[in-house]
C-alpha cells in the first residue's frame, strides 16, 4: 500500500516536473514570489541553526582556542581523535552509553508492546480512557521533575518506598545510592516514564488490523493469546521494525537530560555517558576540540548503526526506513 502511494506520488511529481521545467526560474519567481518570501524565514533559520553548526565539526580537526577564534586556530589533523581514543574516560563513557542505552532499548521496546496488547484487549471505553490518560501522564513531565520524584520516592533516608519497606519490616534499599541499584532505578524510571506513551503508535497500528483476520482465527478455534501471537503481532511487525531502526541511532547518544537529572554524587560509575562527557569536557572545561571529536564519534556510529539496521531489515524482507 505504502509502495503504491509512493509510486503515485512519484508519477505525479514527474508529470508536474515536465510541465514546470519548461518555464524558466524567472517565470516561477515572478509568479510565486510570495511563496518564496514565506520560505525565506524557515530557510534562514535552518541555515543558521542547523547548517552552520555542521561546519563547526571542523573544530574536531583543530587545536581550537576560543580566544583565537576558528580561523586562527591550528589544524592538527586527526591528533584530537588519537588523543581521544587513548583517554580512559572515553572507554568508560562508551561502555556506560552502550550499557544504559542497549538495556533501555530492550526494555522500552518490549514493555510498550506488551502494554499495548493488554490495552487492546479491553473494550470498556471509559475504563480504557481513564487508564490511558493516567499512563500517559509521566511522559508530559520534565526529567527534572522525574529526578525530583525519584528522590522523593526512592531516597534512602526518607523516600516513600523505603519508608514502606521499613514499616513492613524490611531493610532500606539504596535505590539511588549504590551503583548497581542506581542502574536498575534508572531503567525502571525510564520505563515508567515512557511506557504509556510508547503504546500509542502500536495501538494505532493494531486498530489498522483487518477484523476479518480475527474472525477467521476465531472460526479456526484460536483463543485470545493465539490471536495476539498469530494475528496482532505479525500485523504490527513493520511498525516495530521501523521503531527499532530509528532508536538504534540513539544507542551511542541517549538523553543527556535523563542521565543528568537522575545522577547524584554517590553514584558515578554508570553516569558518565557520551553526552555527559561532551558537556563536561566542552562546556565546563572549555576543551572544545576533544568534546566536538567525541560528539562526531557518537554521531558517526549512530548513523552507521541506523544504515546497517536498515540494510539488515531490508535483507530480511521488511520495508525498512530509507
Amino acid at each position, binding site marked *: 500500500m505504502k509502495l503504491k502511494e509512493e509510486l503515485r506520488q512519484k508519477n505525479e511529481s514527474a508529470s508536474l516536473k515536465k510541465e514546470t521545467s519548461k518555464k524558466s526560474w524567472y517565470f516561477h519567481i515572478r509568479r*510565486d514570489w510570495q511563496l518564496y518570501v514565506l520560505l525565506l524565514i524557515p530557510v534562514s533559520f535552518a541555515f543558521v*541553526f542547523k547548517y552552520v553548526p555542521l561546519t563547526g565539526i571542523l573544530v574536531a580537526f583543530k587545536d581550537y582556542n576560543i580566544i583565537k577564534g576558528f580561523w586562527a586556530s591550528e589544524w592538527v589533523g586527526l591528533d584530537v581523535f588519537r588523543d581521544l581514543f587513548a583517554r580512559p574516560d572515553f572507554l568508560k563513557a562508551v561502555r556506560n552509553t552502550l550499557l544504559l542505552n542497549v538495556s533501555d532499548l530492550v526494555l522500552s521496546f518490549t514493555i510498550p508492546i506488551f502494554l499495548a496488547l493488554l490495552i487492546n484487549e479491553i473494550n470498556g471505553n471509559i475504563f480504557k480512557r*481513564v487508564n490511558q490518560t*493516567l499512563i500517559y501522564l509521566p511522559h508530559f513531565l520534565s526529567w527534572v521533575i522525574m529526578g525530583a520524584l525519584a528522590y522523593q520516592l526512592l531516597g534512602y533516608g526518607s523516600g516513600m518506598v523505603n519508608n514502606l519497606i521499613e514499616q513492613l519490616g524490611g531493610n532500606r534499599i539504596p535505590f539511588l545510592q549504590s551503583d548497581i541499584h542506581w542502574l536498575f532505578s534508572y531503567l525502571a524510571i525510564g520505563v515508567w516514564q515512557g511506557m504509556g506513551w510508547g503504546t500509542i503508535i502500536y495501538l494505532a497500528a493494531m486498530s489498522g488490523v483487518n477484523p476479518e483476520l480475527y474472525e477467521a482465527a476465531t472460526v479456526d478455534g484460536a483463543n485470545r493469546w493465539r490471536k495476539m501471537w498469530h494475528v496482532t503481532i505479525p500485523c504490527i511487525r513493520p511498525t516495530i521494525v521501523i521503531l527499532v531502526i530509528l532508536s538504534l541511532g540513539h544507542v551511542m547518544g541517549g538523553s543527556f537530560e535523563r542521565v543528568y537529572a537522575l545522577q547524584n554524587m554517590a553514584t558515578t560509575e554508570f553516569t558518565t555517558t557520551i553526552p555527559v562527557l561532551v558537556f563536561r569536557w566542552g562546556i565546563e572545561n572549555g576543551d572544545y576540540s576533544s568534546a566536538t571529536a567525541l560528539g562526531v564519534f557518537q554521531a558517526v556510529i549512530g548513523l552507521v548503526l541506523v544504515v546497517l539496521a536498515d540494510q539488515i531489515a531490508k535483507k530480511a524482507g521488511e520495508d525498512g526506513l530509507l
Partner: protein
Amino acid sequence: MKLSGSNTSIKRSGRIDIWDIIIRIMLVILSLTCLLPFVHVAAKSLSSDAFVMANNIFLWPKGFTIDAYRQILSDQSIIQSLYISVLITVLFTALGMIITVCAAYPLSRKQLKGRTMITIMFTVTLYLSGGIIPDYLLINNLGMLDTLWALILPGAFSAFNLLIMKSAITSTIPVSLEESARIDGANHFQILWHIVLPLSKPILATLSLFYAVGRWNGYQDALFYIRYNTELRPLQLKLYYLVVQASESFQTELTFVQTTNPEVLRAAVVVFATLPIICVYPFIQKYFVRGVMIGSVKE
C-alpha cells in the same frame, strides 16, 4: 482512545472471562503507579514538618499546612524563573509556529519550483546535526550566551513539525479550493490567512502544544547557555539546582518565624512546577495523541 474499539467487539463473542479481569487489574495497578507518586509528593508538601521528618506521610497529608507554599511564593528567584519560563514558552511557540507555517504552506503547493530540493534540505536536518559543542560555539559567536535568545531561536526550527504540517495541509485542503480562491483573485498570503489556516486549526493546536510542552520541560539548553546570568534561568533549571542537585537553598524571606524543613519545601516546589502541566494535561492529551499518529503515518 477509540482506536481499537471497532475490532475488539468483533474479536470476542461478548462474554467476560477470567483474563478480562486479570488484564483490568494489571492496568489499574500500572495506572496507580503513575498517579500515586504525585499524590505522595502533594501530601508531603501539605504536611507539617514533624510528620515528614518522622517519615510518616504516605498518601494523605498530616498536620495540614500550606506554609511551604507561602514560603515558595515569597522566594523572588522562583517567581522570576516562572516568569522566564512563561515568557520563553510563549515566544518560542509563536516563533516556532510562524516558521512551521511559512515552510509548510509553500512546500505543499505542487507548482512551486525547487520544492523537492528545499524539502530535502529540511529533511536532512533530521538526521545530521552539528552536536552539542558546534551548537554551543555558534551561540557563543552570535553573542547569545546568557541571553533569552539562546533559548528561543535555535530550537524554533523543527523539521519534524514542519513535515507533519506539510502533510496535514496536503491531505486536508483540496487543491480545488485553492484554485477557486485564485480565480477569485486571492493572492498566496490571502489564501494562507483566510483558507489554509482556518482549515488547519486542529493540526495548528497539536503542533503548538508540541512546541510549548517541549520548551516548558526542556532544561538542557538552559544549562548549557545560561551560565552566569542566574536571573534568566527558566523554572526547570531552577528546579534542577534547588531539588535535584540541592546546590542552592531556598531564598525565602525571613519574616517566617519557623522555617519549613527543606524536604517539605522541595516537595512543594515539585508540585508547584508540576501543577501547570497537570492542569492543562487532560485537555491537551488528545491533540498529542493525534500528533503522534500523523507523525507515524508519515514514516
